[in-house]
């Protein structure tokens, strides 16, 4: 498999800083709004109404005291009717508040869960479109963590922080208006205390930031260590290395504990500090209010002051709570950044127009496009107002191809290859000579830098990628199986294959016998990448998968390297029968796999140094010959 040295590590550095948190926040909001504009508006309205209802409760305290209680104190026969009426009105307002709050909850749940689904789906479908280079240059663990960690922190942001920000904004502004209406002076006191709160939070919270970064770094360290050690756990066992492994772990674990304790410790005291500043604010307002009352100049009543004390609470509490959440919001935004970075990755471009179609021969001998499974294909080329059908034969040519994965690190030099339809072409050479790279270029996992690759005379850059890949079957050395039954995994080659077709393919690949010995045969569930199967068995399944796809051109990249030679021979015979008349590319380090090829290319350091059939190359007495004789020289 193509390794691009260096690049993985470079990207692994923890990058927690966000340059524009507010811009990122707005992007998240825009994202949510895209699909749920009207629902969000509805939620907003609900929040406003609920806030008003809740405010009505606080304001009522003033009315209750000033209008209904104080005038009636000491009255012989107090009149309860007005109070009853007022309470009924309040009850109606409250009822609306409760109903609206329920609607708000439901709407917000739908928005947050729905947005999460949209984000997950978007991230995934975008990921599927990314070029192979992305996967080769990013550690798989960090791609995975976008789904497991980042989407999860974003969920908290969307489902709790965002609505809370909204709610705070609405509550605070409505409250502020009523506070100003009641008493300007007292409002100033309140605002002053909130500002103090802000400063304290910024000061204390800022100190926490440093520890949070340390915590994240240590966490990454522990995760990395665990990943490496658990992956090598069997080796640890074999070498009795358990104690050392634990020792290394404890060191990192302790570091994490200390930084986590500091970060959490600061976060934990932020809330009580702000809470008690709230109490201070209460006392101050009471004192100032009392002064104003005794002065009698500000037009303040006892009821107003009592109400204001309530308002003061509803004014400062949400702000305080929100500021206590700042850390988690920042963390979520860091996650959002990673999500959007992935969504912003350039997808694989496909400017190809030539498509692959099934054809049959018409009465006049010309090709006609058809939907029947004729077993014959043609390239359909758009020529302005008409189409041209070029029969698909499997003629592949490389003309002067140069390629590099990274700038100035050329991998292939000036490669010329001619594969005529039906030929078996083999690539041999040491690891790193560029064998796999060539196959990566044929199916355009990577694009060439210079030169051209022609497929039946058509430049592959003009062929639609999907169709190009449909025309090529690939079996890789490293086999990947999917959660599902054995049958599902074989059917992956062609989704509409019947059970019979899958079984026939398995028989061709010589996989049938071991599959039948599995507990549930073809219906055996494979989990964990088929963990219970041996390397060789997995390869046989991969070959079955390719066989059921029945492709015009087949690429076998060390496809039988873990299969024993006897089984390999049987597999080869099976494959030869289906690949009759079709082009096959083979990469192998076993001579048995390549010997009967029409043409063998010997690669060294990205160049083809020899080419020819087995006999021709032996006759040449060159590199191939010396390698061949080397195999037998020792005995």
């Amino acid at each position, binding site marked *: 498999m193509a390794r691009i040295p260096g690049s993985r590590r470079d990207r692994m550095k923890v990058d927690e800083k966000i340059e524009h948190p507010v811009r990122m926040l707005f992007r998240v909001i825009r994202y949510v709004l895209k699909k749920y504009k009207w629902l969000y508006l509805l939620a907003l309205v609900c929040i406003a109404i609920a806030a008003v209802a809740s405010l009505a409760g606080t304001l009522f305290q003033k009315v209750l005291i000033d209008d209904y209680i104080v005038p009636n104190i000491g009255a012989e026969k107090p009149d309860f009717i007005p109070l009853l009426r007022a309470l009924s009105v309040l009850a109606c307002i409250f009822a609306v508040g*409760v109903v609206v709050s329920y609607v708000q909850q439901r709407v917000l749940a739908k928005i947050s*869960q729905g947005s999460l689904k949209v984000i997950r789906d978007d991230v995934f479908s975008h990921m599927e479109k990314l070029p192979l280079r992305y996967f080769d240059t990013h550690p798989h663990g960090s791609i995975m963590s976008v789904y497991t960690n980042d989407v999860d922190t974003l969920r908290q942001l969307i489902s709790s922080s965002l609505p809370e920000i909204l709610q705070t904004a609405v509550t605070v502004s409505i409250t502020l208006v009523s506070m100003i209406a009641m008493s300007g002076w007292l409002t100033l006191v309140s605002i002053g205390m909130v500002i103090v709160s802000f400063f304290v939070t910024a000061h204390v919270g800022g100190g926490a930031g440093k520890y949070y970064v340390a915590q994240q770094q240590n966490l990454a360290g522990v995760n990395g260590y665990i990943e490496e050690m658990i992956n*090598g756990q069997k080796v640890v066992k*074999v070498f009795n290395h*358990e104690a050392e492994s634990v020792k290394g772990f404890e060191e990192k674990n302790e570091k994490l504990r200390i930084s986590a304790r500091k970060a959490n410790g600061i976060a*934990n005291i932020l809330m009580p500090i702000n809470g008690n500043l709230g109490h201070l604010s209460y006392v101050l307002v009471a004192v100032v209010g009392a002064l104003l009352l005794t002065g009698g100049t500000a037009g303040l009543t006892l009821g107003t002051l009592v109400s204001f004390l309530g308002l003061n609470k509803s004014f400062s509490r949400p702000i305080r709570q929100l500021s206590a959440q700042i850390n988690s919001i920042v963390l979520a935004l860091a996650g959002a950044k990673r999500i959007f970075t992935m969504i912003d990755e350039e997808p694989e471009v496909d400017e190809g127009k030539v498509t692959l179609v099934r054809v049959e021969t018409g009465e006049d001998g010309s090709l006609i496009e058809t939907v029947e499974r004729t077993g014959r294909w043609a390239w359909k080329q758009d020529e302005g107002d008409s189409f041209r059908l070029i029969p698909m034969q499997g003629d592949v040519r490389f003309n002067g191809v140069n390629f590099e994965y990274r700038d100035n690190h050329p991998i292939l030099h000036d490669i010329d290859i001619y594969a005529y339809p039906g030929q078996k072409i083999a690539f041999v050479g040491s690891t790193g000579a560029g064998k796999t790279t060539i196959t990566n270029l044929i199916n355009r996992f990577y694009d060439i830098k210079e030169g051209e690759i022609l497929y039946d005379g058509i430049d592959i850059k003009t062929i639609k990628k999907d169709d190009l890949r449909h025309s090529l079957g690939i079996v890789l050395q490293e086999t990947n199986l999917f959660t599902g039954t054995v049958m599902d995994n074989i059917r992956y080659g062609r989704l509409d294959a019947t059970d019979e077709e899958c079984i026939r393919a398995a028989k061709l690949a010589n996989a049938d016998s071991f599959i039948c010995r599995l507990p549930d045969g073809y219906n055996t569930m494979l989990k964990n990448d088929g963990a*219970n199967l041996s390397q060789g068995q997995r390869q046989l399944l991969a070959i079955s998968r390719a066989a059921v796809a029945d492709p015009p051109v087949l690429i076998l990249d060390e496809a039988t390297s873990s299969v024993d030679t006897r089984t390999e021979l049987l597999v080869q015979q099976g494959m030869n029968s289906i690949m009759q008349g079709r082009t096959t590319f083979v990469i192998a*380090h076993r001579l048995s796999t390549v010997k009967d090829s029409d043409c063998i290319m010997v690669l060294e350091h990205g160049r083809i140094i020899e080419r020819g059939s087995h006999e021709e190359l032996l006759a040449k007495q060159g590199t191939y010959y*010396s390698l061949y004789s080397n195999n037998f020289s020792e005995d």
Partner: protein
Amino acid sequence: MTKSALLIYNSAERQRDMIKTLLGQVKQYKKSAILTPVFAVLEVLMETLIPYMAALLIDEGIEVGLAYGSMDAIIKYGVIMLGMAFLSLTFAITAGRLAASASTGFAANLRSAMFRKIQTYSFANIDRFSTGGLITRLTTDVTNIQQAFQMSTRMAVRAPVTLIFSLIMCFVINRRISLIFLGAIVFLGMILVFVVKKVSKIFAEVFIKYDELNTGVQENISAIRVVKAYVREPFETEKFQKASGLLYKVSMKAEKIMALIPPGMMLVVYALTILVSWFAARFIMGGEMTTGELTSLFSYIMSVMMSLMMLLGVFAMLVMSLASGKRIVEVLQEEPAVKEPENPVIEVKSGDIVFENVSFSYRAGDGGRTLSDIDLQIKSGETIGIIGGTGSGKSSLVNLISRLYDVDEGCVKVGGVDVRGYELSVLRDSVSVVLQKNVLFSGTVLENLRWGREDATEEECRRACLAAAADEFICKMPDGYNSRIEQGGSNVSGGQRQRLCIARALLKSPKILVLDDSTSAVDTATDAKIRRAMREYIPGTTKLIIAQRISSVKDADRIIVMDDGRVNAFDTHENLLKTNEIYREIYETQMSMGGDFDQPAAGREA
């Protein structure tokens, strides 16, 4: 007991057991963990008293002050309130600090306990858990538990205590009104219990769906070449969308019920407000209550609501962490399949190996025998080749020797003693295995080699590398033996990795050396060189060599031919050629078609 009742009982039992196991890891942080709620309660006490002081401030300060123009009472109660606020702050900070220390310490203990437990796992245990799964359990799951623990020690006590204190204060202010409070709280409690019961079941479902979704992503990332080669992007996207749709559906099911809670609480609080207003108005007019007391009552209504909100947050956290807790406990309670014997033998006398009537299966008892009726006698110092088809049981056979797995029936003896009688570390020090799927660790070449023997000198390491034909390419690396190996050995080629692993195994100076297809990525010439060197480097060691190539085993003293989990033949190369059909067939296919093809000195690619 009905069946379903039994089920609930069992799961409650299991949950209790789980929580007990988890809390067992609090250990040295027990003091902090217990003191946290104590300080949290003290903090709540202060917080509850503050509105009462506020009531006095209004009644005696403002109302009276209004009449007599005196600020004394306002200042007096203001100072008391500030003093209480200061105390409350002190308690809160203490509680916060203690909670941070206890929860992070608890998390560190959990990670450590799990990691240590995993070290005791045998191969069978490791097979049961996926690597990815274990990593998530050690990281994400522990973080969840840490947060839940912190929440419960700090917040979970706050909420009920606030409720109780508010109720008491209410009782002090006015008994009759406190009855309304009591009714409201009981009603709220009923709503909560109802929701908890309904939702926790759904949450379990949510987690299953979530896991499935992530498994799908994981598979797609690692199999991206297959996906792209077969143009299955739309298929996979559709599959993913179906899974995320299911997740959405169950999550919404939970959310629908959860959505009842805030309006439910509002309902109660509003009802309280109206009832309190009504009765309070009458009481005040009747002179039984003051306006100040009324404001503090409203204040208590607020704190009741706030504490309930908090309780809700804690509850959501706990439900989510329940699944994490379960996954952690699974790791902690897993019984190692291979156990240390009571009175272990601490010396391996020789490299003799005997298999007596051995049968083995990976999942005991499901009928799928991997090995059956194995009888073998191997003498110390012999070189044994093992050959056979894919899935014939070669690796399983050698894995039994160092007790990587235990036999189902029969026994395996090393040096005349049943392997189950040895102390594990002793046995494994004497039996060196180079696994088929081998890994290197991040660190220098030397550090990796010294896994074999910690105190090996550089010279000894070099000698081992010479024998494993690794010296040449190591010397060509930029820093020679001090060159860094990346995680998993990703910066060396497959062949180089295999040779380093062989060298590492040689450093143990084992009595028995097992090479499980360890030279498959090494070219034939180098392979031959390694085998020759081995004969000189460790002549007295019993060597078992599993290989695909006949050339790798043909000069062994004897060769085992495995077929379908049984020993088909065990003899010399010459005899096998004459008598064994399978062996002859393998030999002929390989000889007629040539052996392997690779660059002779793969070292040059470094």
